[in-house]
């Protein structure tokens, strides 16, 4: 029965391949079909989530009936189950949003790319094989390239070009890393790599890990390779922006952390952690400082998103259990909040034509619900108590204090301060300045989605313990590599 979790991969693929056959049915039909498919995917993901969290054991999907390391396995542990659920839910919301937001032809191609982007992120989080990870990463990346350029304007093409060039460099580096690892171990399975990690030559391990981190840094938007991110966020269609921020980045950073933590017991680990810390810190600083001078709200949010990812990376770089807990919690919260923010901003942009600051003047009177949603999101991101991100930032602070890294504490506080500056500027613009124009009737479905997300934010903010329990299990799955190795049923006899 557990093998039916492979439907998570099979369903989006099958439905994406079905689209060319039904494209004559009309644009609206395709978009409704998209919502239906993502809803079914949500159902499957919820079932998987329930199974994993009630039984407490991960689901191992074995493709082709060959046990790992001979075959490829999907490892749906606590972390993966949680994030697959988030991916499915966000995709469903965005499919609903697409009905309103997407009107550039050809819609059927958009639907295929949308489904495959979701598939790629799901696979990246679920897979237990390093080359399979590469394949899913490329699925994600290539559909993301195509979706970034989907609007066919000059900016969209430019952003897509940047993304493609950086992504190409990244994937080449990643493959070189795989070649190094494979050349010294002879296996590609993540669990077996973890098992044999101590046998690997430290020079090779360090080089391979650095290459892998650099390769994934493109997806994870870490500093030297994230020049594409703001452009892509700004130029891509609004639902796609949400998907980038909510789960494509998360999938990238998850993959990076999973690979890095496999080498926990080796000499190379400390060096890589330092690299991660440096990259994360630089990402935070540059992201926040760039966000200050933006006039385009979507771009501003993009920089903010980059900065948050930097914080997550810093959290993983500290690498104590508490810090990992906090980082995973921050990933979850950030996914929720950024979904809300980009959804609301995208809705404003769809209504008024562009997400420029001008259009936000007096929004509180014209689109009160949307403005309310943006307000809650902004307050939450800044880290005001009683909202969810407060808790994750707070726990990150505590974790950093525990190991005595005061620099990180200063970084988090400073980042929050800068965030407060630019978010409150936006809020001021929305509520206290007069804009021109009538009050606008807001869309019911989007309103419900926004309210749901707002409620989630507040609930987590007020009563974090329940989610905290889930997060702790998820992060234990990430941190406890020995348990991970034990969980994967490695074939006996295929070991040196």
């Amino acid at each position, binding site marked *: 029965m557990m093998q039916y979790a492979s439907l998570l991969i099979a369903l989006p693929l099958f439905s994406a391949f079905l689209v060319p056959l039904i494209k004559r049915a009309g644009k609206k039909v395709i978009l409704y079909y998209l919502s239906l498919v993502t809803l079914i995917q949500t159902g499957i993901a919820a079932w998987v989530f329930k199974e994993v969290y009630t039984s407490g054991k991960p689901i191992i999907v074995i493709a082709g009936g060959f046990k790992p390391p001979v075959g490829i396995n999907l490892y749906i542990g606590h972390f993966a189950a949680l994030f697959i659920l988030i991916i499915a839910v966000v995709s469903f919301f965005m499919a609903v949003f697409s009905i309103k937001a997407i009107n550039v032809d050809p819609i059927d191609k958009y639907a295929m790319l949308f489904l495959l982007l979701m598939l790629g992120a799901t696979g990246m989080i679920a897979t237990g094989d390093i080359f399979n990870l590469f394949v899913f990463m*490329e699925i994600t990346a290539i559909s993301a390239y195509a979706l970034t350029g989907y609007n066919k304007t000059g900016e969209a093409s430019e952003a*897509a070009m940047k993304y*493609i*060039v950086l992504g190409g460099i990244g994937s*080449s580096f990643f493959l070189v890393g795989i070649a190094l690892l494979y050349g010294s171990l002879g296996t590609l399975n993540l669990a077996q790599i973890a098992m044999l990690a101590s046998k690997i030559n430290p020079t090779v391990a360090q080089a391979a890990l650095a290459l892998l981190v650099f390769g994934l840094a493109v997806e994870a938007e870490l500093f030297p390779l994230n020049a594409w991110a703001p452009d892509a966020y*700004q130029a891509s269609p609004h639902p796609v922006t949400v998907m980038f921020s909510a789960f494509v980045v998360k999938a990238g950073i998850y993959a990076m952390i999973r690979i890095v933590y496999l080498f926990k017991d080796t000499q190379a680990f400390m060096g890589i952690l330092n690299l991660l810390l440096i990259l994360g810190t630089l990402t935070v600083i540059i992201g926040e400082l760039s966000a200050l001078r933006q006039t385009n709200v979507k771009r501003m949010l993009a920089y903010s998103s980059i900065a948050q990812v930097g914080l997550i990376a810093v959290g993983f770089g500290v690498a104590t259990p508490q810090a990992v807990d906090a980082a995973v919690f921050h990933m979850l919260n950030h996914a929720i909040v950024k979904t809300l923010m980009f959804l609301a901003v995208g809705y404003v942009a769809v209504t008024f034509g562009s997400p420029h600051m001008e259009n936000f003047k007096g929004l509180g009177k014209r689109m009160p619900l949307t403005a309310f949603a943006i307000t809650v999101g902004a307050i939450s991101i800044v880290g005001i108590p009683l909202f969810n991100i407060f808790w994750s930032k707070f726990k990150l602070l505590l974790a950093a204090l525990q190991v005595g890294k005061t620099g990180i504490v200063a970084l988090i506080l400073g980042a929050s301060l800068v965030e407060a500056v630019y978010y409150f500027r936006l809020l001021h613009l929305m509520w206290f300045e007069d804009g021109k124009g009538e009050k606008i009737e807001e869309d019911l479905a989007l309103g419900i989605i926004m309210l749901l997300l707002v409620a989630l934010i507040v609930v987590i903010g007020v009563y974090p313990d329940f989610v905290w329990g889930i997060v702790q299990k998820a992060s234990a799955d990430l941190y406890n590599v020995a348990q991970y190795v034990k969980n994967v049923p490695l074939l006996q006899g295929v070991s040196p």
Partner: protein
Amino acid sequence: MISAYYFGAISLILIGLYAILTKRNLLKILVGLSIMETGVNLLLISVGYVSGRTAPILTEGATPQTTVDPIPQALVLTAIVIGVATTALALTVAINLYEKYKTLDIEKIRGLRG
């Protein structure tokens, strides 16, 4: 002492990287990307090579003891196809850019500013 194939593969990767970093013409950058991918593929294949053995197709007297490693070859099959997919998409985007800006020079394409 490093073997000839490793040397060639690393050189291809570096030449591609050099083209990406310093060239201004978009198509030239994509040529560089393509060369880089070729280099990576060559590196993977040469990692899987075992001296004095034959191709992993078990006919004509080849036995499991006399053949090279099949896995890198399978991986490279995948990587080549992915590479051509990326290249095709990138060229498409370059065509779109040219239609909008009438140039392929990346210094002159500056719609977005950071």
